[in-house]
């Protein structure tokens, strides 16, 4: 019987040969990720109250990324709880202040096609780029997972977003996502499985694919999957996953005749997209916003500050200076991505252009620590521009790709990056 990629992943994790849309099944969890905010400070007291232990510490990854670097005594305490707990629970996989969970997880080879994973963070669907069934859950449900090693799933319908053709230069995965979120709305995914495909998607590198899967959260999907192919295997090998673990990687794709709701897009028709305050669904082509004056240009987050994003910004900013009166802030999504960008000269280009480089953490995107000043108008490569998320309610945040953020920093106004390439 034909199955979608989502069905195949759930079937495997629930120990069945086949699952049907709507089935309620219990799945074995291959990996559980949580961070300093959603993890130890919430889980530890609850585990203690239950008198329970973690089912399998080798299947847990703890990432300190939300409250680092600590801005005050409260944040310091939250991070300290995470560090102390990591020792107490003897967690073998702890990534502390080296980048954002959704980026460091694949970077360390923790995700592989076919796995069933949960994350204590809403952008956990990022893992779907690796044909991994990964979704976000809250702390109490994470407690259930770490005690039982299991999670319930209702088998979702599959909504396929099929992109033909080729993206224009300066147009990227972020623009694709903003466009889809504008069309379907922030809950248009109805907590079903979105699967991205078509030649324009499969032409993307892994980090661009991760941007698609990442913002499946803003589409309201449970997961945002992409079939595994040679690009997936090549990336995983480059981060140390053994060849023999990848032998069956390309099995992780949906059957040709599996039933899905399909939507078709032409990549070459897509222009750079911008989401106006205060929702990612307020997206229109960039020409609707050209010349909006800006105070801050922000390149950050798991959504928009990976190596490929930094390279895009550098391509625009090379040999140029940002406009007077605007601040350009860059918070590379991981230390490894930053180190590679340093080797390639990308970081130097950004600094020479006038960028202030910030720590490898969630930073202003999470809104948990440093945020933007009152009444600031910001263009940001992050995922969400909810009112009050990245600072006071008066802050106006426009979302765009790193290409568009960089171009806008050069003019001090929202700009069409294609004029710079």
């Amino acid at each position, binding site marked *: 019987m034909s199955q979608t990629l989502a069905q195949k992943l759930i079937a495997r994790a629930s120990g069945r040969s086949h699952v049907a849309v709507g089935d*309620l099944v219990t799945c074995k969890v291959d990996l559980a990720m949580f961070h300093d*905010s*959603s993890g130890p400070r919430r889980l530890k007291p*609850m585990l203690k*109250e*239950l*008198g*329970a232990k973690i089912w399998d510490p080798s299947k847990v990854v703890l990432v300190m990324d939300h*409250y680092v670097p600590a801005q005050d005594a*409260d*944040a310091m305490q*939250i991070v300290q709880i995470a560090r102390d707990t990591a020792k107490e629970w003897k967690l073998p996989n702890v990534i502390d202040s080296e980048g954002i969970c959704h980026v460091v997880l694949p970077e360390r080879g923790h995700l592989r096609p076919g796995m069933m994973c949960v*994350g*204590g*963070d*809403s952008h*956990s669907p990022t893992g779907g780029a690796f044909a991994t069934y990964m*979704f*976000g*859950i*809250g*702390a*109490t*449900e994470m*407690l*259930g997972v770490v*005690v039982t090693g299991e999670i*319930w799933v209702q088998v979702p319908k599959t909504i396929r977003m099929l992109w033909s053709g080729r993206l224009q230069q300066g147009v990227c995965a972020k623009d694709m996502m903003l466009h889809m979120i504008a069309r379907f*709305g*922030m*809950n248009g995914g*109805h*907590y079903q499985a979105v699967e991205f495909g078509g030649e324009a998607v499969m032409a993307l590198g892994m980090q661009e694919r991760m941007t698609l899967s990442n913002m499946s*959260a803003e589409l*309201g999907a*449970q997961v945002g999957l992409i079939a595994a192919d040679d690009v997936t295997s090549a990336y995983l090998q480059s981060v140390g996953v053994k060849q023999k673990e990848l032998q069956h990687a390309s099995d992780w794709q949906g059957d040709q005749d599996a039933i899905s709701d399909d939507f078709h897009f032409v990549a070459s028709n897509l222009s750079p997209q911008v989401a106006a305050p205060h*929702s990612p669904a307020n997206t229109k082509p960039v020409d609707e916003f050209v010349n909006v004056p800006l105070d801050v240009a922000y390149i950050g987050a798991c959504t928009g500050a990976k190596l490929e994003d930094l390279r895009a910004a550098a391509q625009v900013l090379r040999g140029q200076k940002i406009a007077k009166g605007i601040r350009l802030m860059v918070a590379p999504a991981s230390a490894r991505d930053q180190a590679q960008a340093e080797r390639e000269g990308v970081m130097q280009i950004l600094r020479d252009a006038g960028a202030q480089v910030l720590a490898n953490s969630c930073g202003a995107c*999470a*809104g*948990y620590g440093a*945020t933007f000043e009152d009444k600031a108008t910001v263009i940001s490569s992050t995922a*969400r521009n*909810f*009112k*009050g*998320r990245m600072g006071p*309610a008066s802050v106006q945040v426009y979302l765009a790709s790193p290409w568009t953020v960089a171009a806008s920093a050069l003019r001090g106004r929202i700009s069409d990056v294609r004029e710079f390439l």
Partner: protein
Amino acid sequence: MTTHKSYVWKLGADIDTDALAPGAYMKHGIDVIAQHCLEAARPDFATKVQAGDILVAGPNFGIGSSREQAAGVLVHLGIKAVVAPSFSGLFFRNAFNLGLLLLTCSKAEQIQDAEFVSILPTGIERADGDLLPFQPIPDFLMRLVHAGGLMNVLKLRSLEKLHA
């Protein structure tokens, strides 16, 4: 479910998790976050809400973050149920895991602010007697509501293990 009449706080569409549990207060305990619940949308809410009140909202309630404090503050403030035409899937799981009842009702927006309604097994009864049906809730989720959340279910489970 009970025939007790509940006071309604009416909200708009797309109420996000940052509005329910603002990021700036996330480092604090649930009591502090609760004081700031919905302060941008309904500044009087956190101080005036009473145990047993219900929230009625437009579509897409709870979009955004996985932070379960967004549901936790509503439990802390004594909200009996949230009624909306649709919810974020992630928020939906979190709410039931904390024992908070969510009712998916396509006609939710007919209900007025400050109205008194009753939650009946067959639907939501408005002040004028009109009955608005809601989508059935799977038994295992209702068990979570009756138990007061997943934590209590897990406690029972570990007790059963002890006595097995």
